């Protein structure tokens, strides 16, 4: 911070918060040396997140586990976040980088909205997120990959959209559902068999939690619902009314049903 004065003389990076903190030398940095990370250095990974479209929006789900090698690093981290009032974002990959990426992304959207007086378009948000992933490429090449998942409502047509990304910063819009993280393959395989377009909200929530259970059944790093400890996935829905966190009793009930259904 520039002491107690306003950053009035800061170079003018337009409405971008990232550019602003970069110009003030406050941007987060994780520069690794030319040798990369030492062997055995293994920060926790956030595992499986997924999102699927339903009749009035999108549901996004994430398990709660962070895994470092064969070790459970954390049992209840949060991987699914509201990005702003009409979109949500989730992370997979190196958890420490991902959480910071999301904080920056959230600040970025709010900053833009306040300066410009309007929200970024859904497409604009997804493009910006892709750019943030791309800027992490040097870290990704050292083995610290962050892959987000993004979904939201397009205010123009009121429909939900899901965007997946790759480590390079590629951005892909999905027609029905998307997933990221170590268990995403399994989750997608499950969703492919049960998904039908235009399903209702409760059905979509059931399917998404069941897909997470399926992922946890095959992927060691993914933590399914833990009824004994009372740890349930984070579930949010994004509709024309905004982002809403699905309350835990509803998630718990859906989790119990999912554990019955998925073998």
């Amino acid at each position, binding site marked *: 911070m520039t002491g*107690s*004065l*306003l*950053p009035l003389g*800061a170079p003018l990076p337009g409405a971008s918060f990232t550019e*602003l*903190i970069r110009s003030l030398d406050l941007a987060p940095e994780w520069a690794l040396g030319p040798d990369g990370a030492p062997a055995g250095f293994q920060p926790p990974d956030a595992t499986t997140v997924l999102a699927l479209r339903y009749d009035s929006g999108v549901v996004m789900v994430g398990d709660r586990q962070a895994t470092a090698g064969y070790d459970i690093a954390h049992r209840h981290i949060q991987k699914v976040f509201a990005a702003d009032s009409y979109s949500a974002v989730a992370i997979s990959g190196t958890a420490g980088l991902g959480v910071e990426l999301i904080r*920056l992304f959230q600040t970025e959207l*709010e900053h833009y909205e306040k300066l410009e*007086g309007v929200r970024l378009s859904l497409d604009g948000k997804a493009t910006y997120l892709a750019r943030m992933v791309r800027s992490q490429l040097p870290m990704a090449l050292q083995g610290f990959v962050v892959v987000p998942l993004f979904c939201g409502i397009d205010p123009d047509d009121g429909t939900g959209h899901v965007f997946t990304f790759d480590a390079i910063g590629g951005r892909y819009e999905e027609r029905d559902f998307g997933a990221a993280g170590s268990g995403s393959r399994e989750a997608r395989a499950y969703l492919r068999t049960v998904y039908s377009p235009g399903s209702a909200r409760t059905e979509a929530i059931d399917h998404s939690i069941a897909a997470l259970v399926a992922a946890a059944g095959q992927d060691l790093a993914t933590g399914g619902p833990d009824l004994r400890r009372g740890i349930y996935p984070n579930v949010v829905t994004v509709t024309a009314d905004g982002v809403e966190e699905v309350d835990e009793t509803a998630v718990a009930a859906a989790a119990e049903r999912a554990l019955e259904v998925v073998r």
Partner: protein
Amino acid sequence: MTLPFYVAPEQLVKDRAEYARKGIARGRSIAALEVQEGVLLLAENPSRTLTKISEIYDRIAFAGVGKYNEFESLRVAGIRYADIKGYQYGRRDVTGKSLASAFSQTLGNIFVQGPKPFEVEVLVAEVGRTVAEDRLFKVTYDGTLYDKRGYTAIGGQADELSDRLGDAYEATPGLVEALALAAEAFRDVEDRAIDGWEGALLAREGPPRRFRRLTKEELGGIATPE
């Protein structure tokens, strides 16, 4: 080699103050009132797109009068200041007081050191959990910082408007009542029909970001004089 002319500090301050005041006197006024539902900001503004009132952070709003480009650059700097602080620390660490003091420092510096003083007055409002925790700060062109209670005004007719608000403002009013009261004060002071309203509320309750603009319907009740 030429020496710069010596100008006595008293003279310098007087000249600059006069210059700034002249600019501000042309600006239409803005009022802020603590109400039961939060903090109300009301401005006379003929434009529907060029706003004078703006969100800064969760519980903090900004209003500026005077030269548009100058208070706009202060608004942008305020949002940057708040967002940087909130990002570096936490959302609760962004306070109206530190922001108002940053405006004060900045305007004070420009007044003394800048090529010309800013022809602006700004208002920083912060809503608290209770009315007692509400904060209204007014910063003038020379960086003087005032901490106001209940109600305040900035702009060309700030003093008269503030006096009129003071006459009518008793126990913390409700939003509708406060709107009527403030509109009446504007009309009395200006002695003419008001050329368009801009209003916003920092809500006392609700999701983290409390700033919202008042709708045409909400402002409709006060639109027509008498």
